[in-house]
């Protein structure tokens, strides 16, 4: 027990340090350097330097605080949720490692340091998804997440190299300064960054790993796969926005990806029969919304929504964890009627679902409003994105808003209302279904409060705000009415239920392609390439057989040869002289 709280203590120390560093920067608009280590002759770090080069941008302080704050809450939550797990220690320490990596990604201005943090996050994600490695599902999910994000990370590596080659520095600020003087290679950089973002933030078409990452412990899902790591993709897109802002190709591609992903994720979330998986698809959809904000040229709106989403999605996942602990499953069919048994979870998750649906006065409403407003502003076509694209994006976003409100309400209803489907032997809930312990409920309350508190001081855009509220209320109302009429809310067309077979390329075609290609390569290797090594080998063997005659492994023979040599040298020396 004490040991568990020791890990909480470590996390708390980390959080306090970050807070001391970041809190004074909260309101700042200008860039402040906190450079540790050496700088190069031109002020930026010399090429591939690995000095931390810590730097707070406007807006990054919030993300840092979000990361360590959620991290601390998750750590506290885990003491109760996972405290008796035999591998709790590695779990807790990986969380700390993850947080440090996240700080490195968000807090640095050196692209290589960012890459290191990025990869460490990927590693932590892999380790934590596979935490229950006894189950094959967890192993497969971890491997899939690892492989997919690794492929996408190649994009980041190449983007970093291209940035370095283009602007002569691996420093983000330096690159931005150089870009403001003479922009170059915006499209290339932008596309490579987009690849990285698509992988990390689980956007179409590399989105399939995130739902499969759900076998990981629920607190981890809340921390990594909702609040921070996947958000880091969006963060990167926003951070490097200036470098590719001039490229209409990139922005259009990003908008298309965002549009497809947000609607697809929302629809998939609707049809899920598993609460946790539904929330995962919801995350994919919400991340796409943030990406849309970046695509229309308002990265601040994107990071704001990132912040709010981080809070309420962490809340939802943690609440989901409480429910799972109570009913022993994440299937919606085993839930229902929980609102009396688990009042804290019910009310806090209600706040979370409200934020997800974009209802006033939660933070989710205001930040989504900002995003919609940004998209709406882009429809005039002078913000880098073609007006037509922006219109399509706006429509898709509004549809998504409706679907989001609908599936949020559906999940809320199915989880907390009704008689309780099949949980007990006679359709009633079991006796052991009770409220989560304090260590789990506490973080929920904190996050619920934050869900409302973050809306303080957010800008309000009346037109879009009104529109989105109407749409969201419509979605909520439609579902509530259907539920009141006795619908099971199980409307799921086959293509949607199968998630449009989008996973098929990964699970079958690529596999088959890879297998076939591997066979060819193996044959090629065996029949063609191996000729050289084999020839070299036999040549070496022949030579060594010859030389081996001298290597008798007998010290005395060596000594004899040595003595013969000495005597001969002396004799020659005497004769010559």
């Amino acid at each position: 027990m004490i040991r568990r709280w020791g890990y909480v203590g470590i996390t708390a120390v980390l959080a306090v340090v970050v807070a001391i560093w970041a809190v004074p920067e909260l309101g700042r608009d200008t860039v402040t350097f906190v450079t540790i280590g050496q700088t190069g002759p031109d002020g930026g770090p010399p090429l591939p330097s690995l000095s931390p080069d810590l730097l707070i941008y406007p807006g990054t302080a919030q993300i840092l605080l979000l990361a360590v704050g959620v991290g601390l809450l998750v750590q506290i939550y885990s003491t109760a949720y996972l405290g008796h797990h035999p591998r709790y220690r590695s779990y807790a320490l990986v969380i700390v490692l993850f947080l440090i990596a996240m700080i490195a990604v968000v807090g640095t201005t050196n692209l290589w340091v960012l890459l290191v943090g990025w990869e460490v996050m990927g590693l932590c994600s892999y380790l934590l998804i596979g935490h229950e490695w006894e189950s094959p599902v967890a192993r497969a999910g971890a491997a899939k997440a690892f492989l997919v994000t690794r492929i996408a990370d190649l994009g980041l590596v190449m983007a970093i190299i291209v940035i370095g080659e283009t602007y002569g520095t691996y420093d983000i600020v330096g690159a931005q300064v150089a870009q403001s003087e003479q922009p170059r290679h915006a499209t290339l950089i932008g596309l490579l960054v987009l690849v990285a973002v698509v992988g990390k933030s689980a956007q179409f078409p590399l989105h399939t790993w995130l739902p499969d990452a759900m076998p990981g412990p629920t607190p981890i899902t809340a921390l990594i796969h909702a609040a921070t790591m996947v958000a880091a993709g969006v963060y990167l897109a926003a951070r490097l926005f200036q470098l590719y802002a001039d490229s209409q190709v990139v922005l259009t591609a990003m908008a298309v990806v965002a549009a497809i992903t947000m609607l697809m994720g929302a629809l998939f979330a609707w049809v899920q029969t598993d609460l946790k998986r539904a929330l995962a698809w919801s995350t994919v959809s919400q991340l796409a919304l943030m990406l849309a904000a970046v695509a229309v040229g308002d990265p601040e709106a994107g990071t704001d929504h990132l912040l709010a989403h981080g809070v309420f999605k962490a809340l939802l996942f943690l609440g989901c964890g409480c429910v799972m602990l109570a009913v022993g499953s994440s299937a919606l069919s085993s839930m229902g009627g929980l609102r009396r048994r688990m009042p804290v979870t019910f009310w806090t998750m209600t706040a979370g679902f409200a934020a997800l649906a974009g209802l006033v006065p939660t933070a989710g409403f205001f930040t989504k409003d900002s995003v919609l407003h940004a998209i709406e502003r882009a429809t005039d076509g002078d913000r880098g994105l073609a007006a037509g694209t922006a219109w399509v994006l706006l429509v898709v976003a509004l549809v998504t808003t409706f679907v989001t409100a609908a599936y949020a309400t559906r999940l809320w209803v199915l989880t907390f209302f009704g008689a309780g489907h099949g949980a007990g032997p006679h359709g009633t809930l079991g006796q052991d279904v009770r409220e989560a312990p304090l260590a789990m409920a506490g973080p929920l309350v904190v996050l619920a409060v934050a869900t409302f508190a973050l809306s303080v001081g957010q800008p309000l855009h009346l037109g879009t705000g009104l529109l989105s509220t109407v749409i969201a209320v419509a979605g909520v109302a439609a579902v509530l009415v259907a539920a009141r009429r006795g619908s099971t809310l199980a409307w799921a067309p086959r293509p949607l239920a199968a998630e449009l077979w989008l996973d098929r390329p990964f699970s079958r075609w690529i596999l088959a392609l890879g297998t076939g290609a591997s066979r060819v390569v193996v044959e090629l290797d065996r029949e063609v390439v191996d000729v050289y090594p084999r020839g070299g080998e036999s040549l070496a063997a022949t030579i060594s057989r010859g030389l081996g005659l001298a290597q008798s492994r007998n010290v005395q023979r060596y000594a004899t040869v040595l003595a013969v040599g000495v005597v001969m040298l002396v004799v020659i020396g005497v004769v010559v002289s």
Partner: protein
Amino acid sequence: MSLLYPLLLSSALFGIGLYGVLARRNAVLMLLGVELMLNAVNLNLVAFDAWFADRMHTGQVLTLFTIALAAAEIGLGLAIVLALFRAVRTVDVDEVGR
């Protein structure tokens, strides 16, 4: 006394010791051959010391050093031979290599 006697004895001992080191199959006896060669050297050192008779007694002192080092050498050498014997159950240098 002629200086030649000890020098010639030394030459003979050195040759015999060399033969022993190169020809004996038993590792312990190889070490004995080394000891013989060292003794030949000692003999030379002492003989030249007696002939030269310097104040520092270089020859004799070096002989003392050689004897001490020979003792150390035989100690270490035999330790190695014993370790070898424990490992491969033989001290036959022809068989050890196999």
